[in-house]
């Protein structure tokens, strides 16, 4: 096994893993704090990628500016998403959250198909064809930038969760909703922020990946099931677990994808999920945030 190939697969796996982590951590944060599953999470990632394409190609905004604008708008969208819809089903609305987010995913996905047609769009900037070559290993610059953005997002989320009061409040609500209420934490403000950060993260992932992959209304769908697998394997509500699982999954998919037929990889992902659950029902890292 020529080391160059293994290195190529490993590096590629890490990049995909970090991006999976961005999407999965957002989903895990929303599940941890609000205890509801967001089936429309993939669609927010898609909308962010669409917006990034529009800003880059139509308004010829720079890479950094596009990422910043898209992420901020995603955070605002998270606020609106919570206040408009999620606030009504707060507290024990698990099955209603499934239906609400499924409905929203249909509206966003098919609405995007209606408005932008399904024609795939590629971001064509000088950046998108630049490659870094080291021996036989080649990585495109846009992937390395996506990796960097991912790591920055990890650090930012860690700081927010473990170094700020609101972060501590969020972890408190996630671990025990009643206890948090009793000490005067306003669950609505905390949940709203959690949704805003969660959608912001998937917005960042969309902006980071827009230059790497083709942008089209159905790109979000395949991500959702992988993100579910990751947050479950990592331990529901456990954000660190979701991040580690995501990177591990990215690496496994890439390295194994280099040997087994590609379709076997998906079968492998889902059967390992079943196997993992039967051995450690609460996921690799335990319930984590939720005691």
């Amino acid at each position, binding site marked *: 096994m020529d080391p160059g190939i293994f290195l190529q697969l490993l590096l590629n796996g890490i990049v995909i893993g970090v991006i999976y982590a961005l999407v999965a951590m957002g989903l895990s944060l929303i599940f941890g704090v609000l205890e509801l599953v967001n089936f429309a999470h993939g669609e927010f990632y898609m909308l962010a990628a669409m917006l990034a394409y529009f800003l880059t190609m139509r308004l010829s905004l720079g890479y950094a500016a596009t990422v910043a604008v898209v992420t901020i708008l995603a955070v605002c969208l998270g606020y609106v998403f919570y206040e408009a*819809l999620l606030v*009504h*089903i707060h507290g024990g*609305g698990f*099955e*209603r959250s*499934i*239906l*609400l987010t*499924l*409905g*929203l*995913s*249909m*509206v966003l*996905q*098919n*609405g995007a198909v*209606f408005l932008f047609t399904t024609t795939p769009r590629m971001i064509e900037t000088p950046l998108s064809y630049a490659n870094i070559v080291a021996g036989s290993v080649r990585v495109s610059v846009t992937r390395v930038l996506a990796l960097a953005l991912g790591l920055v997002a990890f650090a930012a989320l860690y700081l927010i969760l473990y170094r700020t009061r609101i972060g501590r409040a969020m972890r408190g609500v996630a671990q025990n909703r009643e206890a948090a209420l009793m000490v005067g934490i306003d669950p609505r403000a905390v949940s709203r922020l959690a949704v805003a950060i969660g959608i912001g993260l998937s917005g960042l992932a969309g902006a980071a990946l827009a230059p790497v992959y083709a942008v089209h209304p159905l790109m979000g769908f395949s991500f959702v*099931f992988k993100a*579910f*697998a990751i947050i*479950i394997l990592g331990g*529901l509500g456990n954000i660190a677990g979701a991040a580690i699982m995501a990177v591990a999954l990215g690496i496994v998919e890439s390295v194994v994808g280099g040997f087994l037929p590609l*379709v*076997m990889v*998906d*079968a492998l992902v*889902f*059967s390992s*999920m*079943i196997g993992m*659950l*039967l051995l450690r*029902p609460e996921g690799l890292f335990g319930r984590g945030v939720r005691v």
Partner: protein
Amino acid sequence: MTRGWLGALGALLGVAVLFAIPRLTGNEYLLALGISFATFSVLSGGLNLVYGYTGLLSFAQVGFFGIGGYTAALLVTERAWSLWAGAVAGGVLAALVGLVIGYSSLRLSRHSFAIVSLSFALLCMIVARDWVSLTRGAMGIPGLPVPGLDLPGWRWRLSRPADFYYLLLGFAVMAQALFYVVVSSRLGRAMRAIKLNEPLAQSHGIDPLRYKLLAIALSAWLAGIAGGFFVFYLTIVDPSIFDFYYTETMLIMVIIGGPGSFWGVLGSSAVLAALPDLLRFTTDLRMVLYGAVLIAAMLIFPGGVGGWLDRRRLRRWRRPSLTTP
């Protein structure tokens, strides 16, 4: 018990009307809607038994539906079985698979059952598409033969949609009757007890695992048979039978109908089996409107139609006349 007799009479009348439809109108579209309603009522009825009554969130129904379809198609085309034997065998296989999934994951928690059922449904789609030697891969199995039923003195060849309408509606009526008998019996009461408070049910001598496996196996068996009949109506079975779209539709029917409400889910299955087609007047915005209807339904009917009925029943008890000590 007059209310019971009235209900039974109402149900019989409803069934009689449904069976008379093919005679009243030659409009094959109504028959297609009827077939879709009948098939979905069996699937959503099963999901309601597992999720609405026993409290087990399951994504596996579509897997059992597809297993039933593929097994029947393979047995009929490869082993020259009759559709009847093939569909029942498909149902039995689906029930066995359901028991394996149920037993292995339920010993852990309801939560892991939901996840294993989701992975199972997605794995079915992958297997159907890629295990070409077993399932003929992405091309599926086209050209399923016209099934026939040879009874002494009467030979029924199911070649026209009306025949499949009678078949699937007849099967749906039997399935709903079986569901009704189960949920209105003490078995149904035990299932609701498990959903409402599992430890308390255990302290009353109820073994939750037995009832959960009963709910899973029964709903899988009926879903498998429905799958077998449905693919012969389509004359083809292909991997798209495991489409997550079906899971969404079933979940929507149960949640809007109100989990744990028999008539609520049956009613919502009728409306929601037709709704995507009634929205066909807008080619492009069909699914957008469908999504909007879901969001609106959840904001207006929080507990679904059934939930709304329950709250009305509760209000009757809160009248001031009820003095508490």
